[in-house]
């Protein structure tokens, strides 16, 4: 009779759904959701009623054969998978779960209908059961809903076969089913099939360590499996896992035996419900509460489990499932980027939820302990206080008592405050730890991205230069500096230090470069010699791209910086030899050049003294010699004459002229207009990061124009700006002093 009712029920539900689809095609999804919701309630009722099956150990059962018990265990393992998929799929659909609902759920439903009587025997622990008990009726209804919904999905697959078959991936489905079977494994699975085996997970013995390792390995595997999936897919996964967590937690709960003393109000128990609510309803404050509070609580519990007996008995499996899920689900949600990284606002929200929870536990303890004995959040017992005498004293001495209608409600207020502050403090510590981990995650993501870009650039360059990276990228620019649309923006600034700057400097020239303070001269020079990166455009030195072929480009550059930093503990000669080594200069060449230039700059008697004894000018001259020790084609000098005496200044200017006459490029910046006018073949003026003009000395002479006039004309508005800013600053100062 009951079998006929169930088959008929499934058929009626299927036809009803087909009818609704035909008549009201827009409302079909709504109806499926309503039916699914009723199905969830039906299942919840059965789940919260304890099965006698959960008491079976090692297949020993007096109302069923061993083979039948094993088979029923297998069915019991598959049923939650079918249930979860049926319950979630209409709300969050994926191809895999849709296919599981179409093909796996009908089979599981059919098998459970066939084994309906055996199922009832498992519920009640006797062979003498009536098919029409309340739980039996609920179970039959559950099967009808599951069968009807899955049959409808199968029907849809058949009528859209050509389209739907493209999304059919049997391997993925099998893996997902196996994964879900493990995710919501009945907690009595091991004790039913294998009896009481396995050792107690205590004192960090092998068993204890193994489950702890698993608690880290499982989320890692899930993370690596899903890290490239979309946010929605990850969220669906998390909802499935949160539901599995809820189901495994509720397996051994019997709603009929619940009372004030065994309510699931401990931190990790509440975590099971809160994680589910946070994921399903996307409530951030609850999620961050689980992220900051539950994770650490569960981790502590896993390290110090308070249970006894073999690991594989139902209660202990439940303990580990509960704590593992509560430990890793919030973390997984964060690393899979389903929830954004916490900010101060979010931690405030989490503290808010914790405060509500904490006050509730104080009230619950105060109230329930007037007629029973409970220790929710360990506020009543000595779990926490036994670790320090002062806590025991606080707990016993500072008690707040309220008498209402003759009943005394009490709480240890100072101890409660200590625990509350301590936990909030712990939340901040966890925040710092998380923050560190987030930074590490960001760093390694960036590292991998940059590494890939670098590799790709080298491959492209090799391809372009037929594998020989020593060739210039631009053969026509062999004897020149070619700056093309160069732009530089410093990190942390949105202002362009140099903007779309283009310039060509040919060999045999002394090229001068002038601009006001902060105009971008040093920025341009630093990018030209490879000290700073380039935001936009390109710079080529003797045909080599400074970014893509830095080593080849730098071989052709000699650079005198504006800070003349040298290793003061080395002698002048040692420093020059060190630089020569870096610039790959042969022994013979370096000896000849060191001798020649040291004589030229009158340094020959000081070369074997430590540099720390050198004067400013001597250091500058040493840096100049070092910069040309490799006889570079391009000699770049940043303010080379600053602070030099007239003789030294003359020596350097003569050398610059000589180098240019020998066919080198001499590129330098200076503030001294007279020097530029006398020394340079060409001069460029830079203003606020932009090239204002480029002038030939001969042209200027021919037109009888002065560089000073041109510079001052071009710099007028800059000067005006400076004067204006000075006036504003002056006004501000006078107002403040007033």
């Amino acid at each position, binding site marked *: 009779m009951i079998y006929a009712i169930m088959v008929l029920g499934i058929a009626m539900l299927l036809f009803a759904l087909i009818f609704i689809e035909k008549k009201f095609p827009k409302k079909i999804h709504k109806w499926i959701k309503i039916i699914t919701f009723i199905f969830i309630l039906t299942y919840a009722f059965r789940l919260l009623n304890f099965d006698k099956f959960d008491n079976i150990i090692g297949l020993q059962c007096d109302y069923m054969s061993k083979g039948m018990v094993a088979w029923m265990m297998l069915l019991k393992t598959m049923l939650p998978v079918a249930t979860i998929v049926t319950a979630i799929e209409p709300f969050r659909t994926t191809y895999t779960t849709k296919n599981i609902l179409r093909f796996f759920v009908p089979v599981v439903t059919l098998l459970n209908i066939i084994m309906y009587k055996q199922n009832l025997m498992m519920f009640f622990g006797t062979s003498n059961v009536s098919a029409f008990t309340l739980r039996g009726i609920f179970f039959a209804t559950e099967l009808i809903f599951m069968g009807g919904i899955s049959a409808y999905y199968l029907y849809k697959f058949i009528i859209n076969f050509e389209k739907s078959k493209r999304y059919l991936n049997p391997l993925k489905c099998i893996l997902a089913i196996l994964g879900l079977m493990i995710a919501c494994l009945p907690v009595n699975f091991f004790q039913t099939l294998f009896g009481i085996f396995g050792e107690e997970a205590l004192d960090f013995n092998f068993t204890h360590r193994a489950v702890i390792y698993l608690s880290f390995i499982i989320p890692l595997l899930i993370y690596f499996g899903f890290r490239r999936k979309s946010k929605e897919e990850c969220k669906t996964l998390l909802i499935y896992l949160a539901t599995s967590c809820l189901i495994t937690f509720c397996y051994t709960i019997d709603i009929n035996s619940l009372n004030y003393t065994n309510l699931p109000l401990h931190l990790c128990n509440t975590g099971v419900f809160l994680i589910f609510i946070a994921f399903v309803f996307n409530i951030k404050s609850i999620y961050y509460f689980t992220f900051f509070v539950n994770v650490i609580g569960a981790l502590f519990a896993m390290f110090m489990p308070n249970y006894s007996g073999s690991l594989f008995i139902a209660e202990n499996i439940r303990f580990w499932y509960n704590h593992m899920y509560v430990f890793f689900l919030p973390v997984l949600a964060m690393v899979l980027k389903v929830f954004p990284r916490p900010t101060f606002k979010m931690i405030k929200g989490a503290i808010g939820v914790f405060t509500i929870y904490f006050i509730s536990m104080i009230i619950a303890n105060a109230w329930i302990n007037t007629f029973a004995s409970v220790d929710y959040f360990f506020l009543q017992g000595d779990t926490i206080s036994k670790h*320090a005498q002062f806590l025991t004293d606080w707990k016993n001495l500072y008690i707040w008592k309220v008498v209402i209608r003759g009943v005394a409600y009490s709480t240890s207020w100072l101890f409660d405050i200590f625990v509350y502050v301590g936990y909030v*403090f712990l939340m901040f510590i966890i925040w710092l730890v998380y923050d560190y981990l987030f930074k590490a995650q960001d760093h390694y993501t960036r590292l991998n991205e940059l590494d890939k870009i670098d590799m790709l650039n080298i491959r492209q360059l090799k391809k372009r230069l037929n594998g020989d990276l020593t060739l210039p990228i631009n053969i026509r620019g062999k004897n020149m500096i070619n700056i093309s649309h160069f732009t530089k923006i410093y990190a942390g600034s949105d202002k362009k230090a140099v903007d779309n700057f283009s310039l060509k400097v040919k060999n045999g020239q002394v090229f001068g470069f002038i601009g006001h303070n902060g105009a971008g001269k040093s920025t341009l020079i630093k990018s030209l010699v*490879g000290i700073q990166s380039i935001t936009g455009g390109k710079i080529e030195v003797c045909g080599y791209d400074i970014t893509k072929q830095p080593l080849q480009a730098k071989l052709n550059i000699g650079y005198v910086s504006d800070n003349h930093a040298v290793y003061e503990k080395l002698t002048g000669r040692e420093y020059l030899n060190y630089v020569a080594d870096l610039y790959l200069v042969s022994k013979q060449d370096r000896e000849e050049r060191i001798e020649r230039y040291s004589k030229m700059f009158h340094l020959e008697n000081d070369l074997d003294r430590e540099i720390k004894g050198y004067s400013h000018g001597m250091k500058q001259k040493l840096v100049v010699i070092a910069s040309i020790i490799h006889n570079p084609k391009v000699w770049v000098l940043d303010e080379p004459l600053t602070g030099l005496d007239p003789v030294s200044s003359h020596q350097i200017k003569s050398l610059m002229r000589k180098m240019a006459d020998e066919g080198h490029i001499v590129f330098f910046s200076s503030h001294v207009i007279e020097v530029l006018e006398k020394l340079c073949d060409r001069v460029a003026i830079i203003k606020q990061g932009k090239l204002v003009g480029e002038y030939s000395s001969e042209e200027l002479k021919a037109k009888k124009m002065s560089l000073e006039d041109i510079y001052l004309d071009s710099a007028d508005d800059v000067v005006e700006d400076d004067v204006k800013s000075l006036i504003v600053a002056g006004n501000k100062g006078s107002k403040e002093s007033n």
Partner: protein
Amino acid sequence: MFERIKLLTLLQLGGRKKKVVHNKKQLLVSVLLKLLTIVAITLVMYFAFNFIKNYFSFPINKSVLTFVLFISQYISIITSTSALMSILYNSKDNAILLSYPAKHNEVFISKLVVSYLEQLNKNLFVLLPLFISFGVLNQVAFFYYIASFIMFLVLPIFPVFIGAILSIPLAYIKKLFKKFPVLYVILIIGLIVGVFFLISAFIDAIPKPLRLVAIYNKFINGFLEFVSSANKFALFYNFVTDIMYSINIWLNSLWLILVLSGIVLLTNYISMPLYFNLASKSNEHQNSNKVKKLKPVNQKTTFTAFLTKELKLTFRNINKVINDYALIILMPIILFIMNVALSAIIVTDLGRAIIAGFNIIVGMVLVSACNTQSATAITTEGGEFVLLKTAPSKTSNMVWAKILINFIVSTFFILLSSLLMTISNAVTIQNIWPICAIMILVNWSHILMSFQFDLLNPKLRDYAESGKTDNNPNANKSVLVGLLIGIIIGALAIFLFNEDMILGWYKIVTIALAFFILRLYLFVKNLRVFFKRIEY
């Protein structure tokens, strides 16, 4: 005058402050974090004292407070004197500050104020938690807490002013040593001989076998006697604890004020007048007349060029080497003494595991503390880094040259420590070499980590401007991480050895090797990607 001192102080503080607080919210978070840290340190101290009191039956009383206070304050005086020698006479900012329109005395006072504020900041995390945890443990009267707060403000004055006085003769002695280096060598040899005799005396004094339980009371009483006699040298710190414990408050306060006034007067009449003289001389141009012998120079590879340069710079600045490697140089002696003491104790298997693990922890803490120089290796290139950026060769080899030196020096001292451990007999020879292997591998990993900190966040400009690596965040991070790694690896070793010594060795050496390979892989990758992106 006060306005100028205030300005000079703010100027110096502004230069030292690394993090700038932009708004009230950041200020609130920063204050909250400091507060939480103080609470955390107080709790840790409380539990530590509670543990010592309850589990070792060791009395934590006023006498012990005086002892802890005077030891910590004497250390403060030493560090403060050393810091003031640098801040007062050798600081780069002297040239700027002395040129300002302020009297030299005002510059001097502003420097003392800055030092006082720094001491106060340190004490916020040391003295204040110490006083509070002591008070809670001993359930003292409320006045104790008021006195604690006053002492927290007053006590930093002593090391600063005493440091200012002591820094003068020391500055002259330093000059003398520079002029006659032989005197310095004689002093160092004298110190080594002294330490050797002390060690020998200590080793001879250890009874064999050492039965801790049997001699426990004797040991405690002996220690208390030692505390009591040591407190005779606590001088005015006895007044401090007496005031806190409400003993002759007025009389002791008067003594304390008198001592304080004496120190202030001495500073005023001795240190202040000599300050400008010493500070200006140290900034004068020093012309070195040393001529190095000319040696034939061959062309080198970039790596050997860097290595030669590093070795020359290292050996020409022996003081820096001693500062950088002080702990690692002391490591063999410390581990030897520790193991000699431990060898006299008859221990169980667990005891053996603990001794092995403890050797790893102590060794790692000492050796990793010296890796701060790895954490500032790129930073200390300062302005010279420009040369590395413009050179047409693989200049990241510079890092490997520095790493090689650190690897060699630290490995040498770890091997030396292991050799000395074999003499001590606390750990069997079969167990010493795995300890040595673990320390070498983990230390190498830590060196690479420290380099990575600097690679990712070099403070080139700061160093180029100041020539100092004080308060370098990478160095601080390196010390903290070294401490954590040492504790974790040591605890893991104890845990694994306790299960099965031989299997434990295999496991822990494998873990250390895996850690090293992982760090090496990550470091090479970081170096490849980020070295060329360092900007100056």
